[in-house]
C-alpha cells in the first residue's frame, strides 16, 4: 500500500474562474481509492442555489458529508432569512464550519463560485481549516494544484464572455488532470451567467 497524504487518498480537481459578468466552475469526475478508479461519475461541484455553486476536493467521504451539512445549513438559512444567501456570506459560513473543527478537520478544500445579487462574479477558495482567499481571477483545488495553477496562469485573461470562459476553463482543467495520476476520467463544467447557467460534460483521457 502506498503512503499517501490524506488529501490525495481520493484524487480530485476543481477549478473556478471569473469572466465578464459570469463565473465558471469545473471538476473532474473520478472517484478512486489510492490510485484505483472505482467510478467515473462522481462530480465534485454541487448546485447550492441557482447562481451559487460549491466545489469540494479532498477526501471523498468528507466531500459528501460537508455537502450534506452545508445544504442543511443553507436550507435553514433560507427558512430563517426568507431569501437566498450571498456567495460571500456562504463562503464565510463554510470557513466557520471548517475552523470549528480546527483540531480534527474535514479533509476538504472547498471552492465557492457564484454571482451575487448585483450579478457581480464571486469566487473563493479555502484550505481545510477554512482560511479563505478571494482572488480576482481563478481558484484551483485538488490533488495536483501545481498543474492547475500553471495552465490557468497561462491561459486566463480577464473579461471573458461565457462561451470563451467555458473553453478556457475546460482546456485548463483537462490539460491539468491529464498530468494528474489520481484525478481525471472526464470533467463537468458549469458556467453561471445572469440569464441562467449551463453545464456540459467533457470526455478527456480515460485514464
Amino acid at each position, binding site marked *: 500500500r502506498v503512503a499517501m497524504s490524506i488529501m490525495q*487518498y*481520493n484524487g480530485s480537481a476543481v477549478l473556478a474562474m471569473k469572466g465578464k459578468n459570469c463565473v465558471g466552475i469545473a471538476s473532474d469526475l473520478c*472517484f478512486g*481509492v489510492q490510485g*484505483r478508479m*472505482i*467510478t467515473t461519475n462522481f462530480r465534485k461541484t454541487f448546485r447550492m442555489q441557482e447562481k451559487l455553486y460549491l466545489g469540494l476536493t479532498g*477526501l471523498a*467521504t468528507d466531500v*459528501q458529508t460537508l455537502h450534506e451539512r452545508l445544504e442543511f445549513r443553507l436550507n435553514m438559512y433560507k427558512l430563517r432569512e426568507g431569501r437566498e444567501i450571498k456567495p460571500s456570506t456562504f463562503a464565510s459560513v463554510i470557513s466557520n464550519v471548517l475552523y470549528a473543527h480546527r483540531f480534527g478537520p474535514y479533509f476538504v478544500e472547498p471552492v465557492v463560485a457564484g454571482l451575487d445579487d448585483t450579478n457581480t462574479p464571486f469566487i473563493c477558495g479555502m484550505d481545510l481549516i477554512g482560511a479563505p482567499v478571494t482572488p480576482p481571477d481563478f481558484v484551483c483545488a485538488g490533488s495536483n494544484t501545481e498543474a492547475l495553477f500553471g495552465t490557468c496562469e497561462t491561459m486566463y485573461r480577464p473579461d471573458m464572455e461565457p462561451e470563451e470562459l467555458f473553453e478556457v476553463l475546460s482546456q485548463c482543467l483537462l490539460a491539468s488532470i491529464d498530468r494528474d495520476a489520481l484525478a481525471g476520467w472526464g470533467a463537468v463544467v458549469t458556467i453561471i451567467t445572469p440569464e441562467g447557467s449551463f453545464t456540459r460534460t467533457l470526455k478527456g483521457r480515460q485514464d
Partner: protein
Amino acid sequence: PPPMECIFGLVGDGFTLLVADASARRSVFLYKQDEDKIFPIDEHKAMAVTGEPGDTTLFAELIQKNLALCTLRVGVPRSPHATAHFTRAIMAENLRRSPYFVNLLLAGHDKDEGPSLYYLDYLASLQKLNFAAHGYGAFFILSLFDRYYRPGMSLPEAIKLANLCIAQLRLRFVISTPAFTAKVVDTDGVRMVDLKNEGVRMVDLKNEEEMVVVEE
C-alpha cells in the same frame, strides 16, 4: 486488517447479485470455510460486509435492526437509496469517534429504482454502481467486470461471470479462497444462489441455520 477477504456484486436484469468469500481467518489461521458474510437487511435488501471481524457483524446487525425499527415505526420499508444514505450517515458520524472498519456492498430492489448496488467503504464514501468489489480480490475482479460486464445481464450470465471471477482468483490470487457464498436480490426477495449448479433456493430469513452455506 489487510483486505484478504473479498466481496463483489453486480446489477443485472431486474436483480442484484452479491458474492462473498466464505472464509473466516485471522493471521495465518483459517477458522472456517462456511462463513456467510451476506446479511439480509430486509425483504428486498442484502448487505455483504468485509473488514474488521467484530465490526462487520456488529455493523450489519445494527443496520438490520435499525431498518426493522424504521419499518415498524413508519409502516413502509425504506428504499435502497434511503437505506444506503442512512448506512453512510451512521458510518460517517462514527468516523471521527469510534470508526467502523467495515467495507460493504448494499444490494437492493425497489419497484421505482429497480435493482441497485451501493458501494460503501470504511471511510463512508458512498457510490451507486453497476458493479463493485472490495478487498485485494477487487484488483482482479474489477478488470474482469470491465471486460465482460454488460448492463441487463440475465441471472445465469451473471453467475457465469461470478464463476469466472472466482476461477481467476483461484488461479492468480496468492491467498487461497476456495469457498464463496452468493445471494441474489430481486422482486421475490433475498435468495441464496448455488454458484456451482446455478440453482436457486429460497432463504428462510427466520431460520438461523439457513444463513450458512457449506461448500462440499
